[in-house]
């Protein structure tokens, strides 16, 4: 639990971001949390981190429905820079727009890229499990 973790939240829902950030802080007070409002801002932010040799996120919590660049497009963009990142990055899709049927479909397609699909609203227990 004391392990240093760098976590990135990409979501346009500010209430959600606030809540999740708070929960994660309570779980890993040392953890480094960055937030982005949409996919585009996230890609730009990550590229900047790589240039400045900042601590890149170990964990990305990705929403799907977002303005400007949605979750899927972000994943496509992220694939092109992923190999430059020296460590493994785990991506979790956290969205309300995921039904069971589609999840299976996405899982086949995104098997390599997405660790898991998590349905909103997200539970504190789930987040606790992700951080370990």
């Amino acid at each position, binding site marked *: 639990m004391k392990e240093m973790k760098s976590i990135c939240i990409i979501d346009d*829902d*500010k*209430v*959600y971001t*606030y*809540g*999740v950030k*708070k*929960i994660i802080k*309570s779980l890993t007070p040392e953890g480094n949390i960055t937030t982005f409002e949409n996919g585009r801002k996230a890609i730009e932010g990550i590229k900047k981190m790589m240039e400045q040799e900042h601590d890149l996120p170990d964990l990305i919590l990705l929403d799907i*429905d977002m303005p400007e660049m949605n979750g899927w497009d972000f994943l496509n963009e992220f694939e092109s820079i992923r190999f430059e990142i020296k460590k493994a990055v785990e991506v979790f899709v956290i969205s*309300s*727009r995921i039904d069971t049927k589609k999840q299976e479909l996405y899982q086949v397609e995104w098997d390599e890229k997405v660790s898991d699909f998590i349905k*909103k*609203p*997200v539970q*504190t227990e789930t987040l606790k499990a992700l951080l370990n």
Partner: protein
Amino acid sequence: MSLPPQHRKEIPKSSWVWDIASGELSLGLTFLQLFGKQARRVPDELKASVIKVFTSAEISEDILFFRRTKHTISGKDYYVEWVGEPIERCDEGNISKMAGFAELGSLRDDFTLSLNQEALFFSRLMDNLRESVYFKDLEGRFIKANKACAKKHGLNDPADLVGKSDFDLFEDEYAQLSHDDEQEIIRTKKPIFNKVEKEIFSDGQESVKWASTSKMPLYDDNGVLIGTYGITRDITAEMKAEERLKQGYEMLHNLSSHVPGFFYMYTYNKNGTAGFPYASDGIRSVYELEPEDVKHDMSAISDRIHPEDRQTVIDSLKHSSKTLEDWFCDYRVLLPKRGERWLRGQASVEEQPAGSIIGYGYIWDVTERRKIYNANMQLKSQFQAIFDSVPNLIFVKDFNGRFLMANQAACKFFGKAKEEIIGLKDEDLGVSSEMAVKYREDDLKVIRFGEVEFIPEMKSKNNSGQTVYHQTIKVPFVQQGSEKNASLAIVTDITYQKQIEKELSKRDVLFSKLSQQAPGFLYLHNVDKDGNVSFPFVSDGIVDVLELEKKELNNSIKPLMRRVHREDLIRVMKSIEHSVKTQEEWDCEYRVVLPNKGTRWVKGRAKPELQEDGSVLSSGYLSDITLIKEKEYELNETLDIVGDQNKRLLNFAHIVSHNLRNHAGNISMLISLFDMEESEEEKKELLKYLKTASERLNISIEDLNEIIDKQYKTQNDLKELKPAEMIEKVKQILVSDILSYNVKFEDSIDEELTIEYNPAYLESIMLNLLSNAIKYRDPDRKPAIHINLYKKEGHVYFEVADNGLGIDMEKHGDKLFGMYSTFHGNENSKGIGLFITKNQIESLGGSITVESELGKGTTFKIKLT
């Protein structure tokens, strides 16, 4: 009895010149020789007495100048005959000088000296004349007449006329007129020339005859007026000719104003010599020869005869001499003064005991008559040429049904030469006896009643056995020289026309059937190399579609363009120009403004084809698509409404599955954080977020309310309706597509079925499914659609099955009714269409299923209620 040629040979003659103006008579040096040795000098009173006789009658060029004077010299009586002609005129045109010959006449006291050979000869000549010649006394009684005159009055012997007057022979009115004329001549001593009269006979024989009469005063040898004499020619034929040819006046004038001709006696001796021992003075005008010139010699006359006709004349004379048949000949002469003239000669011929031939005859100028004749001949030959050049069969059949004349086309049709066909009857020409009877009936109708018969159509077989159609006009035809009419037939071969007509009527039926069904008209539009426009065909639908009559097109596109809406005009014209230029198909939807119906939408399609002559012929179809357009608008509107609803539905789904869940999730998350939080500061912050989340939740719920409300309202807009009627309505909307692609329907529809439904939805559902069935037809198959409408277990089902392209259900099945992620308003009509359809059906409690196989077709099954 004959006149010895030598009889007058010895009689000398002397020339004379009479100056009318000065009254001086100059006599030739030989004048005294007339009286032999009896006279040594011309008696003083002689010239005066001669001039007195000269002026006793009118001097005319037309009438032979002939005077007879009596002189007593040395106690002996002499008769001198003066023959002359005008030789000079004064400025006014009157005759001013006469000249001629004088010779000693026979010793005669009066005309009763008829036993004289010369008188006999004269009488004989008279009898050869066709004109009536007669001499009357002062009371108008006949003294003497010729045979023609006697014959005219039905008598054989001219002697029977002697003593009779006109009152015995003619109807009173005419007799009186004739008598008055004669009395006038006796009173004034002035002759009457060429008076044309209508002769009316007293015995009622052939009621009216036309005659031309010249009458003159008759003097005895002593210059004493003893009566009148005259010549009357029957000109009935000419008068009739006038009526027919309307040239009668001219002809009559020409004929009657001319010297009729001259009488002659002709001899042909065994030794080959020939001559005219006697020729009356008319020879001067007819031949421009003196009687003397021809007395013993034919050469002068022979020289006058046209070289081309000379042999004909000689041959005919020889023939006549040999056979003693009457001589008759028409021939031309070339005269020094008057040039080429036509003469007609006739003579009766006698053989003398000595073996010589004597002919008594009459020759006259027929140039004018000939001209008329020639004109007729020319006309006739022109007609013949025309007859022969036309493709129509023209022929004339007489009263007995015999062919009198046939043109080339007719001869060809009957397979006979022109000469062969004359005199034949229909039966002889291979016409079946049945048809021959029919033709004969027609002919007789025409001949008997003199009416024109029109036989519009007649089927028969030509001589090669092919069926032909003929149209015939039969006209009564006056046959010259016969009182019975003939029938003139003009036959037109209409076989080809009939074929064309048949084809046309077939096509017309098809066209009219099509145009009845289709709300439009078919047309052919031709633009030739020079840009001239014509419309070879326009179906009647144009009246409905454009409120234009066919004839208003009148080889111009302008009337069509005048109907086009101002805003569409340039676009339409450019598209037509482009199509004609490039021969690309023309397809254009545009507005027209009609006088009655106002603004309408029309759709035109045309396929242009370049013709051999460089013109472009477009076959096109123009239809009123206002209804379709309106439906399109309605559909678009529906789409908007439904699209709106769909957006709302989308929002609904979004709200339910996303927003509500999110808000709720956020709220529960915040509350649990709130429970854990100890810092008042943080609790305040959390409450702020909680408030935001709950506000958002509230808004979402309000939106949801609104959507449910609208949905509820649409569902309530229900009416009782017959789906069968709606199917018909939808087919009507799609009629142009149905006709264009020749869609075949095999329907099984419960016509009486009624349901409670939203009419706009039902129309939209049916229209969408049917238009898809046509749109996604298989180009290799004739489109066939089966519509089923039935009730089963309390539910109403509507099925549309097509034989179109089909859908790969494994690939697209789940997407068929769904919205794609790329869904943006109206971009994919198919996608929207079925999505809307499904939503509409489901919003009213129904359901839709689909079965499809690629390459076989698709079946949509809808449970409406």
